[in-house]
Structure formats: structure tokens, C-alpha cells
């Protein structure tokens, strides 16, 4: 989702790498949700990304803002569970704020933050509750800072990778207060949140793509 300011990369070009990346982490994501949830997070996610992949052609012809909207609607109708409406809310809100004409890092950053806020509203949740927000919120803050400091996109991507890994890791020690693992209480401690992990994997993959595409 990080894009170059000058010559914006089509979001659709990240779909296949994302699907590959989560598939590589299938076992890890699945067993995290088995440990502290109901075991379906990987399946839900894969169903969603696969559904998006099936409309790659349609997406290719759309501007990024419209792509985000279509991605949101597709996620909404294909993922289900808790993560479905959350991911969908992100993209639907993102699409409203993303400006295809003026695709600056500032604008991307604002759209991203609005998307994350939509997740907070939909999930009635915030950082510290052992959810995907524990990755998404810090990442949003990091890129906001970077956009103020006019950081280089490659440099930023590297920082985002480090940050998201650190943040996903940090959910291990958190007590869950949202989602299915709340029943676990103390027993959830020591396990990473599956949604945080999957967001980290996707974010890292996109950053790696940006870095390797140069």
C-alpha cells in the first residue's frame, strides 16, 4: 500500500505477491488462531485475497481509489468473520480519502490513517487490545512521521518492516479484550494475535515489493 509519489504503482500489482506471502505463513497464522481463536483466520484471509485475485483484470483498469473500493467490497462479501468487515472497512474508508490525482505520501498517509480509524470504529477497539490494530496503528503513525520528515520511500519501507514485526511480536504479552480470544484471559499470553500477524506479513510483503522494485 506504500506507493511511490511520482509514478504510483497500481495496487493490483501487489495482489499475487500478497497471496503468496500469506500462503507461506499458512501454518503459523492458522495455529495462532487455533491457539487463541477458532482456527479460521488463515482460511478467511486466503478466501478474501483469492477473491480479489479473481478480479485482478477488472482492477487493473481502475484508478487506485476505485481499486481500494472494489477490494473493500470484495473483502466484505468474501471474508466474513471478524476480520472481513474490519479489512473491508479499511479499504472502503481508504478509497474515500485517496486522491488519484495527487498521490503524495501525505495523501496516502492520510487515507491509510482514515482506514485504520474505520477499523477502530467498526471494532470498537484501539491499540493494546491484542488485535490487528496493534500493528496497523503504529505503522500509520510511523508513515505519518515519515511523510512529515520527507523520508525516502525505500528507507521508509525498511523502517515499516522492522516496526510491524516488532509490533506483531508485542501482542504476545498482551491480554486480549477484543475478539474470540477474550475468553482465554491469561492463557492467551505468550501467543501472538493472528490478525496482527497476518497484517504484519502483508505489510512486510508490500514493503519488500517496493524495495525490490526499487
Amino acid at each position, binding site marked *: 500500500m506504500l506507493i511511490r509519489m511520482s509514478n504510483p504503482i497500481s495496487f493490483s500489482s501487489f495482489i499475487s505477491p500478497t497471496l503468496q506471502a500469506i500462503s507461506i505463513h499458512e501454518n503459523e497464522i492458522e495455529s495462532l488462531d487455533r491457539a487463541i481463536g*477458532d482456527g*479460521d483466520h488463515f*482460511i*478467511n484471509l486466503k478466501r478474501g485475497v483469492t477473491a480479489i485475485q479473481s478480479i485482478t483484470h477488472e482492477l487493473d483498469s481502475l484508478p487506485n481509489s476505485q481499486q481500494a473500493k472494489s477490494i473493500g467490497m470484495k473483502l466484505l462479501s*468474501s471474508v466474513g468473520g471478524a476480520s472481513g468487515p*474490519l479489512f473491508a472497512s479499511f479499504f472502503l474508508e481508504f478509497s474515500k480519502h485517496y486522491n488519484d490525482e495527487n498521490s503524495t505520501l501525505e495523501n496516502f498517509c492520510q487515507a491509510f490513517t482514515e482506514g485504520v480509524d474505520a477499523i477502530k470504529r467498526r471494532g470498537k477497539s484501539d491499540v493494546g487490545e491484542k488485535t490487528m490494530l496493534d500493528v496497523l496503528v503504529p505503522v500509520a503513525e510511523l508513515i505519518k512521521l515519515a511523510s512529515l520528515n520527507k523520508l525516502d520511500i525505500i528507507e521508509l519501507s525498511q523502517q515499516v518492516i522492522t516496526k510491524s514485526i516488532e509490533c506483531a511480536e508485542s501482542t504476545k504479552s498482551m491480554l486480549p479484550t477484543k475478539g*474470540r*480470544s477474550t*475468553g482465554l484471559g491469561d492463557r492467551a499470553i505468550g501467543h501472538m494475535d493472528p490478525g496482527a500477524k497476518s497484517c504484519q506479513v502483508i505489510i512486510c510483503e508490500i514493503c519488500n515489493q517496493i524495495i525490490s522494485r526499487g
Partner: protein
Amino acid sequence: MKKFINHADDFLEQSLSGLQSAHPELLQVHKDPFFVTRKNINPHKVQIISGGGSGHEPLHTGFIGHGMLDIACPGHIFTSPTPDQMIAAIDYCQPKNGVLMIVKNYSGDVMNFEMASEMIDTKNATILTNDDAAVINSSYTEGKRGVAGTLIVEKVVGSLAESGASLEECQQFGLHANNLCSSIGVALTSCTIPAAGKPTFDIENDQIEFGVGIHGEPGRRREAIREANLIVSDMVEAIFQDFRERDVKIGGNSEFLVVVNGFGATPLSELYLIFNSVTNILNEKQLNIGRSLVGNFTTALDMAGASVTLCLLDDAIRKHWDSSVYTPSLRWGI
């Protein structure tokens, strides 16, 4: 994992097709997106819609029909349905007097139904069922889970809706019934999601999960298996504790509807044995069992285990529980 299945991907579709062919006179299964409606739709009554992840059969698809649900939206196994399913179903039924959504309190279900609710033009209201006593409500949880008490809510609200009550009346009555229900479950084994192919949790051969959720989510504690009477006594205690905490008054004349619900792999004979324990415990407390239901109604795929639900009866709930119902999995009076 051994199951009667062709491919994990088409399991839901084929199972719903079977439901359709087994009950052509009662219901209509729609595909792409999935939703199930009554065969004969009456758009003038409040449409009662429920749904949730599949794997809890007969909940909810098996409760469609006269006196209970109008619509059920089944999600993939243990995964909430998506808003387009609710939207398509409501569009198909063209309700003239509103839609009441009965939603088990899980983040996924709540959010997906919420989005559907925001996206439709039809007047609608929601009841979140949260009868599971296992997870204690506190500032650290987002509320209790909805489990087998849901079918009681669906039954009594379904009956009220059939009598022509308004959306608000149905919602109020459902909230009232939900408040009088409390449940707790115990798992002896895990369930296995077909698409995952392995058990959701590991459990030792001499352990039980006390307070398990209907997706195999962990409960209050893992503990050694004991005599059924002792397990059931803890279950009933947890329920009364929940009633006390929520200020549901239980007195000497209190009469209950008791549901002993199997999670899928527990034989009926064991469910009756559990019911016997509950009976003895309530008798000792000089409380009465007014109505009962024993069987597999809110399952967790092939999990061995069972839940006990107590619903405090008042005249209205008793009347609407007793009223005739004709669905694939609950039927009486017709």
C-alpha cells in the same frame, strides 16, 4: 480428519442442498450468496433473520419455519456470514414491517450484521444474544458469547412475531428472554474444521475444557474429568452465579426451561444422564423444571461435550415456548 465430505470448499453448498431436498415443503435454499428462507414467505409479519458461521447445525437453518425464523444466513464453517448475504435475503423477502436480526454476540457476527443493517433501507432492529456464563463480563471482555440460549430466543420471538407483533415488541421480548437465559458448556474433545483438517485444540485424555465456546474456544479452565454429577454441579453453579451477577431473581417458585444441548459427538444417553443430574440439583434447591429440551441443537461440529441452559420461565415465555412450531429440527403442535 475423517468426515463425509467431497471437498472442503463445497461442503457448505452440498450440505445446504441436502437440507433443501430433505425439507422442500419448509424452506428454500438460495445460493450465491447463500441464504435460506421459508418456502412460503409472509412479508407482512416482522421478518426474523438469524445467521452465523456454519457448524452449529441445526442452529440456525434447522429453525426456519412457522413459529420460528424466516431467514438464516449461514457463513462458512465457524465464520460469520457476510453482509451481502443478509442484504440479498432481505431483498428477496421484501419485508413490509421490518426485520429483526437475532445475532450471537461474536465480534464477527456483530460487525457483519451491523454493516448489513447500515446498508439496507428496511427498518431493522437487532438482538445480541449473550447467554454464555463462562466468560465473565468485565471491562476486559467485550461481553459474553451467545450460545444455546439463542434457540430459546429464536423460538419465543418467532412465536410472538407470528402473532403479528411489531418490530419493537419483538425486539423487547427477545431482549427480555435473552436476559433470562444462562448457559455453560463443557468439552470432552475438540472439534475439527473440515478446511483446517486438524483438531482446533489439543486436550489430554483425562481433561475437560470447562466453559468451552461453541467454536472450541477456550473456556474458564482446563481440568481433570470427574463424575458427571460433579461436572454438572459446577455447571449449574456457574449459571446461578451468572444469574446473581446480573440480578436475575431466582426464588422458591422459580420455574425453568432446561436445555441440555449436545455439541455433536455426545450420545443422547449421556445428554439424558446430564439432564438427570440437573434435575436432581434443581430439586435439591427446590426449584422447578417447567419445560425441557434434550438433544443436539447448538453444536460445534463433531465436538464431544454438552451445554446446559437454564431459562427462567414467566407466563409470556412459557406461552411462546409452547406455541406450535414447524421447522426441520424443532416441531410440535403441527
